[in-house]
């Protein structure tokens, strides 16, 4: 065994082996993998081997697409057959909402180049004669996917890795890891290895591995069963007659997958009630462990399967496999850097590991060798969960993520498990006012307010639903009076020290606010010039800055800052997220309102746009920042969190006859779109340069060095392929743009929407999208696909509502 290597991969399932393989392919042959038993131990060996291309997420979809293409080529490269049966995959729909989901997905598929077809029930029957299609509305088919032999796939990649010089040590267990100045020492039961990077791919052991380095990794596996039947004469006959295999069938509404296996069938449901397993970690000899089957909890899905494929009920059950599959709170894996640790990478929580392994290995290799991933990895970002993810939270959410695999993934869904964990002080008051909550990063946030007799309940859909009218009221009230928004979930921190200014100037592409009390919108680019984070930065004092960013990105943004901070002590970081609350007042009557609750001067002359002042609201001292995300006159009131209810009550009291009403996140989204305001993860991403995202006035390439400047300049020389535009969509009936919709010009896809909604102040259906620069001119007519139907749209000028920002600056 080597005593030194560039990278140590911990774990020899398909995920770990893929990571090793991709590093070797990137030219890093001095890499090793350590596996405590044999390759494929744990979950890989008993996986059903399905390769679903279908995934609603833009990042995960790209990872899956890469993998399916890679696996096709592996035999040629390594001489090892991977047993890839490209038999296609059909997903059935028996409800309208499911078809909406498929149409929404088809849009995503278009934008990432995945081939998907819509089928009629009769077409389904042609491919799957054993399928009962009477009550189906339709289906989608992925001709390119199918299933694979997990062990063969793993061995093929292992061979590929070894051929390129990588080494694999089996029957070797990692017992500890120590951080060194430039990397790590990985201690095993057969000796120690010094290395630069460690990638954790330990599957069911994820939390144990994380513990070795002080990380609380948000992965706990859940039991999943699949049933294997004995051969069925009809299927055996089909094979004898030379007919093709029927392919993978997924009855989404009945929540299961099915495929042929040795002349019989496999059925794998995703039922309610599957328990988390290995909550305190698997035993060290559990590599081939399977659990007791429980057919009772599968009963409704078995009935559904027999209804759909009667042949399934005609043959005996040969075996039931019940094994562990890793899960995370939202069902997507975690692939990327660990927080707080240099050169420690996490590749865990894979629920579709056979498919995701390929793409995850690919991007991690890019990230480690070249410094950045090449696709937007936010969907699988390890730092998208915070330290609120306790073990009990994890157990509840992961069980929920499991039973949601086949539930319709509404764009506005707010899952119910483990809720009301993080509440801001005004939670109960908002609830009493009719708030219907959602959560972000664990924080409860009002999504909208149920008023005028509306049920205080959410209503999910791909189309306009019950809350459409609610947010119409909220938006109109913001336009005419003043609204109150709880943004306590914002990520907040303080950067101070003698080196603070220099550091922040290097961190972001904009010029920092010079004067004390001034605010600037600044963007941290990654080393390749894409947009990583967006901060509102306020200069509090000399050498002291207050940074605010999106609540969902707290861990991501703060980890980014801390990893780039100098280590000589000249810069100190203080996380203020949980100690500062934020209430936002916005609307033409905002000034009037503030004057009533504060003795301080809120006049335009003395409290300009993009400035901050310490004021009193009632008896509470507040950092009032004149900035907001909805394009109206307004202030963000940042306050020590214990004052929140005091401030809240004062505002509500004073605002009674001003028409002060609370509004929620969904209204906020409609309002910001009318201003063409951008969000990290949709309009802003590492895949787009800030220029493509329309951030021109926030980028100062001549101000001096900053992260990503060199790459950005080179990119600009090469030329940009996208331009962010604001669109008006015409003739909408019941569904606005959601995001990821393909945009067409003359029948060709020339862009994708990044977000959309109905703009109530404008009275128009609005979308933001990335299109080819050549046609990004206001007035340009295009077409956009919403749930399978084409709509005309026109490019508008940026910020169609109050383009001069008169209201903001009033």
């Amino acid at each position: 065994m080597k005593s030194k290597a560039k990278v140590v991969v911990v774990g020899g399932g398909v995920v770990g082996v893929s990571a090793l393989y991709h590093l070797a392919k990137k030219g890093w042959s001095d890499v090793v993998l350590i596996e405590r038993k044999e390759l494929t131990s744990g979950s890989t060996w008993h996986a059903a081997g399905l390769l679903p291309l279908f995934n609603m997420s833009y990042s995960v979809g790209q990872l899956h697409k890469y993998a399916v293409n890679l696996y096709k080529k592996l035999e040629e490269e390594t001489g090892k057959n991977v047993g890839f049966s490209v038999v296609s995959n059909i997903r059935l729909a028996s409800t309208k909402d499911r078809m909406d989901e498929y149409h929404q997905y088809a849009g995503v598929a278009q934008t990432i180049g995945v081939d998907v077809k819509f089928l009629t029930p009769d077409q389904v029957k042609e491919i799957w004669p054993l399928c009962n299609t009477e009550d189906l509305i339709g289906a989608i088919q992925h001709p390119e996917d199918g299933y694979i032999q997990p062990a063969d796939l793993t061995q093929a990649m292992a061979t590929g890795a070894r051929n390129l010089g990588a080494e694999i040590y089996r029957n070797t267990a990692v017992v500890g890891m120590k951080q060194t100045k430039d990397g790590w020492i990985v201690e095993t039961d057969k000796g120690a290895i010094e290395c630069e990077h460690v990638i954790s791919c330990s599957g069911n052991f994820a939390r144990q591995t994380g513990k070795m380095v002080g990380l609380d990794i948000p992965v706990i596996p859940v039991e999943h069963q699949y049933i294997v039947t004995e051969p069925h004469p009809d299927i055996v006959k089909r094979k004898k007659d030379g007919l093709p295999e029927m392919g993978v069938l997924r009855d989404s509404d009945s929540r299961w997958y099915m495929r042929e296996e040795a002349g019989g069938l496999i059925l794998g449901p995703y039922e309610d009630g599957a328990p988390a397993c290995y909550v305190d970690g698997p035993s060290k000899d559990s590599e081939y462990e399977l659990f007791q089957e429980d057919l009772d909890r599968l009963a409704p899905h078995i009935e559904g399967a027999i209804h759909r494929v009667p042949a399934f009920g005609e043959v005996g059950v040969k075996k039931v496999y019940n094994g562990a599959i890793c899960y995370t709170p939202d069902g997507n894996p975690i692939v990327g850097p660990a927080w707080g640790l240099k050169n420690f990478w996490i590749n865990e929580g894979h629920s579709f590991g056979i498919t995701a392994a390929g793409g995850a290995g690919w991007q991690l290799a890019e990230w480690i060798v070249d410094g950045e991933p090449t696709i937007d990895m936010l969907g699988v970002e390890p730092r998208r969960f915070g330290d609120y993810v306790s073990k009990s939270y994890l157990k509840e959410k992961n069980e929920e993520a499991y039973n949601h695999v086949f539930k319709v993934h509404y764009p506005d869904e707010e899952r119910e498990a483990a809720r009301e964990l993080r509440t801001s002080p005004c939670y109960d008051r908002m609830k009493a006012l009719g708030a219907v909550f959602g959560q972000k990063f664990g924080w409860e946030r009002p999504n909208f307010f149920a008023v005028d007799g509306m049920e205080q309940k959410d209503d999910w859909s791909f189309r306009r639903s019950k809350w459409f009218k609610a947010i119409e009221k909220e938006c109109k009230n913001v336009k005419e009076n003043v609204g109150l928004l709880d943004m306590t979930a914002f990520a907040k921190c303080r950067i101070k020290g003698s080196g603070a200014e220099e550091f922040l100037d290097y961190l972001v592409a904009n010029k920092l606010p010079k004067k004390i009390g001034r605010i600037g919108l600044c963007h941290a680019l990654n080393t390749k010039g894409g947009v990583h984070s967006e901060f509102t930065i306020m200069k509090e004092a000399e050498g002291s800055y207050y940074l605010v960013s999106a609540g969902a990105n707290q861990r991501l943004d703060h980890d980014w800052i801390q990893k780039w901070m100098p280590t000589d002590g000249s810069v100190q970081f203080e996380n203020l997220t949980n100690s500062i609350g934020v209430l936002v007042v916005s609307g033409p009557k905002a000034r009037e309102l503030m004057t009533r609750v504060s003795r301080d001067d809120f006049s335009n002359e003395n409290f300009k746009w993009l400035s901050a002042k310490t004021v009193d609201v009632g008896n509470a001292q507040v950092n009032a920042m004149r900035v907001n995300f909805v394009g109206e006159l307004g202030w963000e009131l940042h306050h020590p969190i214990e004052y929140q209810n005091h401030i809240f009550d004062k505002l509500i009291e004073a605002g009674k006859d001003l028409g002060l009403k609370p509004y929620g996140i969904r209204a906020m989204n409609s309002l910001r779109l009318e201003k063409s305001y951008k969000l990290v993860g949709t309009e802003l991403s590492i895949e787009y340069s800030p220029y493509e995202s329309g951030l021109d006035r926030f980028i100062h390439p001549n101000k001096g060095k900053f992260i990503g400047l060199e790459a950005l300049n080179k990119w600009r020389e090469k030329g940009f392929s996208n331009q962010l535009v604001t669109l008006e969509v015409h003739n909408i009936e019941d569904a606005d743009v959601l995001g990821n919709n393909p945009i067409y010009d003359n029948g060709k896809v020339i862009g994708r929407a990044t977000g959309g909604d109905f703009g109530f102040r404008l009275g128009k259906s609005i979308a933001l999208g990335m299109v080819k620069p050549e046609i990004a001119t206001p007035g340009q007519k295009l077409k956009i696909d919403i749930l399978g139907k084409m709509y005309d749209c026109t490019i508008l000028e940026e910020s169609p509502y109050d383009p001069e920002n008169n209201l903001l600056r009033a």
Partner: protein
Amino acid sequence: MKILVAVKRVIDYNVQIRVKEDGTGVVTDNVKMSTNPPDDNAIEEAVKIKEAGKATEIVAVTIGEEKAQETVRKALAVGADRGIHVKIDGIVEPLAVAKLLQKIVDKEKPDLVFMGKQAIDDDCNQTGQMLSALLNWPQATFASKIDIKDNKLEIIREIDEGLETIEVNVPAVVTCDLRLNEPRYASLPNIMKAKKKPIDELSAADLGVDAAPRVQQIKVEEPPKRKAGIKVSSVAELVQKLKNEAKVI
């Protein structure tokens, strides 16, 4: 004829057994369990005899903890008519099982008692023989073929030397070998229907049997680990080692 089939719930034969660190036994918590494989052959044979019209009722009986019921349910799913579960926790030795079965035989009055020849957990291979002795019935062990002729059974048994054919009177106890038949798989509709078939629950006290163990388990250990192997450099060396070192050819 009425056939009583005894089935046992054991750790699934595919599971890699782990010995508990404190040496008190083998880990059974959260471990996959299933029907003792030769008991599946016993059930299958009984069902085949019923399908051939030579039996009218099959009763499946199991002795064990609460979850042992699952093995009876499985028997019901492949064709048994009724079930009996004698609920006892902990180890029940073959002698106690035989005594319990004897009492059940006295009640049910079956013509034949079938069971697997050996349980793959304790590997005792005693129960069928003991039951025969207590009932003073003939025994036909390690059966690989059963033919029913009038009121007798002609059985082919697997013995070390080859096969032995014997003829026993009915009533008799037969213990089944894996080669007796190919157990059928239960279809899901039958598995679901089996949930409705009746299972009587009894205790050892109900049957008047003292099921306390007489053999004390002092400790359980792992066998010596498999030695690491070696790579040989030629076929000649391989053959030489197999002959002289391993002595297997």
